[in-house]
């Protein structure tokens, strides 16, 4: 029974790969392949579940593919199955199948039919990796797949401005969650001294001795996990991304944001529950987050006048309640609630266009011209305030921009000088200093590399940030990110001599090819009109779809997306940052956060959005 677990991942992977090679014009083949694989997945699951029930609900854990094994480090995939996996897998598999069948007709003749099915398959692959994951690494791979699939489906209508803008909004906040998970993994490596599998959480004695020894660090891990969960499930104060994510075809909105993607936060909490059950701080946090979310999201739901945002916020409200249920230990109820909520919201989203006819008809027969209730002034004031707050979504979107991203933009602008030609010798000098310190580290007092590392990391981070706020030439922005990454690499090498050359090779293999490919793509685009300034959207995908794909892949490879060995390299990079090096870990993780954002920003500004040449019908910016 255990070996079967692999197939839950392999099936969607094969489906995704096969989907890639079917030509885009073959609608029937694309849909057929998706539906067949989804059905197979469901059948396999039902078979597996029967066996599982027959064996009286064992917990299944299977160590799988080992990526790398070194002296003190081992990175591998691990699969796991228990009742939580069971419920999530069942609902996921059923919804995937139903939505594929629905989309087969719904998407008919839509430009990007193949793109759509590829993306939902990539998403489903990520979803399965997460729910079947037995350790943080496997979960994280799935997490990345889901993130990028979401990004690409939100910007599905890539020739319009709003989907593209919202896609970067959503991926930005997702990326924050990614980094939170990376940090959780990082700390986990350090306190367990191994790649911990979730199965070990089931050993109470091990867990309690571990926790008593490392309580603050464990708390840090869990806060990061909770942060990641809050972001994925749109909990307060990260709620405003969910309605904005509903830019793609209605079916993908239903599948992702009505059901599977948004409930991943719930899953994460349930999966790690054993670990945090004894931590009152976490319970308290979850309760507070849950209650705040219920209040805020419910008040926003009240005043939503568009159907999709109404469903989005009511789903967030329900997830707030699920957070509460989990915090209170009612896990069975939470699972049931997840299943019901996912099915209900997906359905409501799928049929959301019908609401116009249904409610107008309803209004025709049941209209009640109720007069405003006469209440005392204080209550009226409260109601009005809540109303306005609801319309403004409690300013959540605004605050996020102002207090989360704006400061970084500002720093990036201020550090724009680093990208200056004049500053180049200075930047090079810092880099060479770092190299010098590294190669002749025996000549220096050991404190020097320790101090130099964060400075180098900071320089790298600032370079990346300057690229993130760059509104000038895309090629120079690209070069800055590449330079920034080299600084980050150097800083880790400085801080830890164990990060050897074979690791660098592993990390560099993807990065090297990606940097060259990305550079080349931008150079080709620049040749067209000699205008690749990042101050606007160019929409070059209309003219050069192939270059756009290559560039996107370069961005992903460079950012450590699990398609090249760089992915393992990044993991290694992090695990070589020592627990004590707080400055270093802060800058390195920030650098990784903004690397992906800076790259995707280049991608969307150059390739997506309204095509800049109005020789054909172009969408309005406001549409």
């Amino acid at each position, binding site marked *: 029974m255990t070996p079967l677990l692999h197939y839950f991942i392999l099936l969607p992977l094969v489906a995704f790969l096969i989907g890639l090679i079917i030509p885009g*014009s073959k609608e029937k083949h694309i849909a057929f392949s998706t539906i067949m694989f989804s059905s197979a997945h469901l059948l396999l699951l039902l078979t597996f579940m029967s066996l599982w029930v027959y064996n009286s609900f064992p917990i299944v854990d299977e160590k799988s593919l080992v990526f790398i094994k070194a002296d003190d480090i081992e990175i591998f995939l691990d699969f796991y199955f228990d009742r939580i996996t069971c419920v999530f897998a069942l609902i996921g598999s059923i919804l995937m199948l*139903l939505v594929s069948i629905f*989309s*087969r*007709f*719904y998407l*008919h*003749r*839509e430009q990007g039919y193949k793109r759509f099915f590829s993306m939902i398959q990539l998403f489903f692959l990520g979803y399965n990796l997460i729910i079947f994951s037995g350790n943080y690494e496997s979960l994280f791979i799935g997490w990345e797949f889901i993130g990028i699939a979401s990004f690409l489906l939100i910007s599905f*209508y890539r020739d*319009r401005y*709003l*989907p593209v803008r919202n896609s970067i909004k959503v991926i930005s906040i997702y990326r924050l969650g990614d980094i939170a998970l990376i940090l959780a993994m990082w700390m986990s490596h350090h306190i367990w001294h191994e790649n911990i599998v979730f199965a070990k959480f089931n050993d109470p004695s091990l867990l309690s001795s571990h926790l008593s020894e490392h309580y603050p660090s464990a708390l840090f891990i869990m806060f990061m996990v909770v942060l990641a969960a809050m972001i994925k499930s749109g909990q307060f104060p990260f709620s405003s991304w969910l309605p*904005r994510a*509903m*830019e793609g075809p209605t079916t993908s909105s239903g599948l992702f944001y009505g059901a599977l993607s948004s409930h991943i936060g719930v899953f994460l909490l349930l999966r790690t529950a054993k670990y945090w059950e004894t931590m009152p701080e976490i319970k308290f946090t979850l309760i507070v987050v849950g209650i705040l979310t219920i209040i805020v999201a*419910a008040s926003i*739901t*009240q*005043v939503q*006048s*568009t*159907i*999709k945002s109404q469903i989005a916020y009511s789903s967030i*409200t*329900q997830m707030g*309640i699920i957070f509460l249920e989990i915090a209170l230990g009612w896990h069975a109820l939470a699972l049931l609630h997840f299943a*019901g909520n996912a*099915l*209900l919201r*997906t*359905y409501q989203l*799928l*049929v959301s*266009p*019908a*609401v*116009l*006819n249904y*409610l*107008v008809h*309803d*209004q025709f*027969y049941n*209209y009640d011209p109720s007069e405003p209730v006469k209440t005392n002034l204080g209550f*009226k*004031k409260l109601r*009005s*305030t809540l*109303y*306005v707050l609801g319309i*403004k979504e409690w300013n959540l979107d605004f605050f996020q921009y102002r207090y989360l991203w704006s400061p970084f933009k500002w720093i990036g602008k201020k550090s724009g000088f680093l990208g200056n030609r004049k500053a180049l010798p200075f930047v090079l000098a810092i880099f060479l200093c770092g190299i010098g310190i590294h190669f002749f580290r025996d000549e220096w007092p050991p404190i020097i590399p320790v101090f130099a590392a964060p400075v180098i990391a900071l320089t790298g981070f600032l370079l990346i940030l300057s690229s993130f706020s760059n509104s000038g030439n895309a090629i120079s922005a690209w070069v800055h990110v590449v330079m920034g990454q080299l600084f980050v690499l150097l800083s880790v090498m400085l801080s830890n001599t164990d990060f050897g050359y074979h690791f660098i090779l592993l990390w560099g293999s993807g990065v090297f090819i990606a940097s060259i490919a990305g550079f080349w793509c931008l150079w080709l685009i620049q040749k067209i009109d000699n205008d690749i300034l990042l101050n606007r959207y160019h929409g070059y995908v209309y003219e050069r779809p192939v270059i756009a794909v290559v560039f996107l892949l370069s961005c992903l490879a460079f950012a450590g997306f699990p398609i090249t060995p760089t992915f393992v390299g990044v993991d290694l990079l992090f695990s070589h940052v020592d627990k004590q090096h707080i400055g270093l870990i802060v800058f390195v993780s920030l650098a990784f956060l903004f690397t992906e954002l800076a790259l995707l920003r280049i991608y969307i500004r150059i390739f997506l959005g309204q095509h800049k040449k*109005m*020789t054909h*019908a172009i*969408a*309005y*910016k*406001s*549409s």
Partner: protein
Amino acid sequence: MARKIIQQKKTENIQNKNGHSVLTHGHINVSDGFNIDNVLHHIKHYLPSQTPLKDFIHHNSLHAFQDKLFYEGIFTAATIFGYQVTLELKDYRQLYSEGRIRKDVVKEIVEKRKGVISADFWKSCMLEKKYDCHLAPRIGWLRSHWNTRLNFDIDNKVQPLLFRILSSYLDQGIAIQKFPLNEKGFLASIRDLQKNSGEGFFKTKRAKDLLLNEDIGVYELLMILVGNESAFEHYLFDQQFSHRGWSGMVATLEAKPDSLLDKRRISLYDVVVLELLLEIDALDFYFKNRWNPLTIGLPINSYNLFAPVQKGEVMEVLSLWQDAFEWSYYDDVLSGLSKGNLIKPTDPVDTSFQAMFCIDERECSLRRHIESIDPKCETFGSPGFFGVEFFFKPEHGKFTDKLCPAPVQPAYLIKEINTSKHVEKDILFDKQSYHPGKGWLYSLGIGFWAGITLVKNLFFPKMSPAISNAFGHMDANGSLTIDSNDKMILEDSLRVGFTTEDMANRVEKLLRSIGLVSEFAPLVYAVAHGSSSANNPHHGAHDCGACSGRPGSINARVFAAMANNEKVRSLLNERGIKIPDSTFFVGGMHDTASDMIEFSDVAYIPELLKDLHKSNVIKFEQALNKNAKERSRRFASINSKDVLGNIRKAINNRSVSFFEPRPELGHGTNSVCIVGRRDISKHLFLDRRAFLNSYDYRTDPEGKILVDVLKPIGPVCGGINLEYYFSRVDNHKLGAGTKLPHNVVGLIGVSNGCDGDLRPGLPVQMIEVHDPVRLLVVVEHRPEIVLKCIQSNSAMYEWFINEWVHLIAFDPIEKKFFLFKNGEFTEYIPLRNHLGILENSELLFENASLMDSAHIADATKENLPVFVLN
């Protein structure tokens, strides 16, 4: 540069009749420059005029330019507003190389328009010359300087909130909590909220103060923002056209507040004030006092939005191509019509039955099939409200539905009584599910039911309360208050029921207009149409345009009842229309999506005719089978070679499937309107492309009836045609884009996602199969009579003289065509005399190829040529 300095600006706040607060500027300096009322009037003229989606009335998307010649109008619109108004040049060239634009037609058109001498030059321009077709619209130029100057995307900061406020205010029932309304209107409500809440919509003090100061109007706000009075109009145009969907909706609701059930008082003025305030607020917030009015240092005087448009060579080339594209089809239609004299008129004595349909081009094929099944029957076409205009109030309904063409204001009310049905509910749409607590119960309870429902709809689609049901519009078992028995009962200031005189007038007018004044068959059917569809906010666009975008079942039933009324018949008898006692009228409705017909009041059919009716029903069913098969050739999900029963079932399923964005293809492909006897077109295969309006010139030699027949052709058929035309050529700006990401806003419209502007126009799923050609109206009468008729009404004349539709007079005596151009009729001789003969239409449908893409070269390949029926 000397500028007028306005001294002593005095504003007064006057309440106008509607209670709107209108600011008028007391100073003479102001009115001679900027007058807000004039400017708003001007803006409204160009905004889209689509009403809330529950009623969909097709109209010319560029109605504002209809006072110009077609090409001048569309290219002016393109230059000012940046619309794509024709196909792309390369598309025309591709159609030409594929033979769909005919060589002989191109030659003819170029020679006619450019003269034989320069024809070669123009032909080479059309075929080879490279042009820069890049469009740089004038609109938006002024306001784009916020971006270039301050690097500030003002729309990004203002629009999301503005749209949210507007949709919340106008919301008809999505939100659980209503907008706290102040009966004085939109701005007053905003002021109330600002005063009553701790948290307003504004972040800065100046904007708040300006809002609460009721003396401040658009002028003062524009002074702050723009600075120079001469740029005000341009600024407001730029601003309102950056979200023409919402502005258009507001302007429409201001003009037609009745188009909402839950009424709102809103004006474009109020919205402009709020938007200007939001802009000031955004600028103050991000730049404190470090920003200047926009016009400082800008050469605004050199930039006039409405300066005359220079007609460039590329426009000329495009217009030549468009003409050639249109005439490549029209020429065959006319050639086909000219062959009509070969056919003998049917012997009227033994007509088996007569059936009236809507002129809608979707009925064109159904009529063809019925006639082929029963060659002895006779079919007619007339606008689908059958000449009876009224408001309809179903039992238990809180409102009335208007059932007649949009411009008509009926004085009558028809009530439905003694119904047996009650309004069904669908728990999955229940708003309770959005509450936190009840939502919890719902998630746990009906969440699983939702999953089961989804499975049911995927595999066994069937009608449900969530689906727009064309037959649900009327309860077949209920009765209607049609005959007032000459009593005067008023309800909502409408007359309940018609008097005998009223009824007789209407029946007479209709019968005379279609030329059915004698030789009545035993059974005369009046078949209206409607359309059922699931998950379709644009369902109204598929219903009957002559019934204000609703199913016409009631009209057909009312008309039949009137024509059966004994008192009416005796009055008609006095007026020379003798309907035999043995003749009975039956109303019914054709669902154009599911291809079903239901007849009403069949219980009243006299016993003697019941069997006849039964046999006719079988004929209708056979015709529907064939019609379904014909339609199925366009649907990838249906195998046209399948047995008829399966095709019918599959067609029906499309209309009740939530996953089907194309329940039917609507008016796509419409291109011709034939006003005349059915005999002149009966022998032709016109592929659902022709509006067929029955009219018999022999009963109307002076053209007295013709005036009324032609009046709706422009607004109704021309409106449909041009809406499809423009949504086809620019689906991004003039159409609604693809349906798939649509989000229903306030039950009044759709937007993309949650932050977008409203999207008026038609979605891509409706227009793919449409060839963007103007309507060719063919009228069977002598040219001088037709000319007299169209000149009798200036609004009607505009359609023809400005060439927004083409007009041909088909002289019934000489059998010649006369084309109307530059105010006169000149003879047109079809270029091609030889048309294909259709031996087996079924084979044609079965072997249809599916389209590869929505590109014009692929998508409209299946728009079949004109054939002569065998």
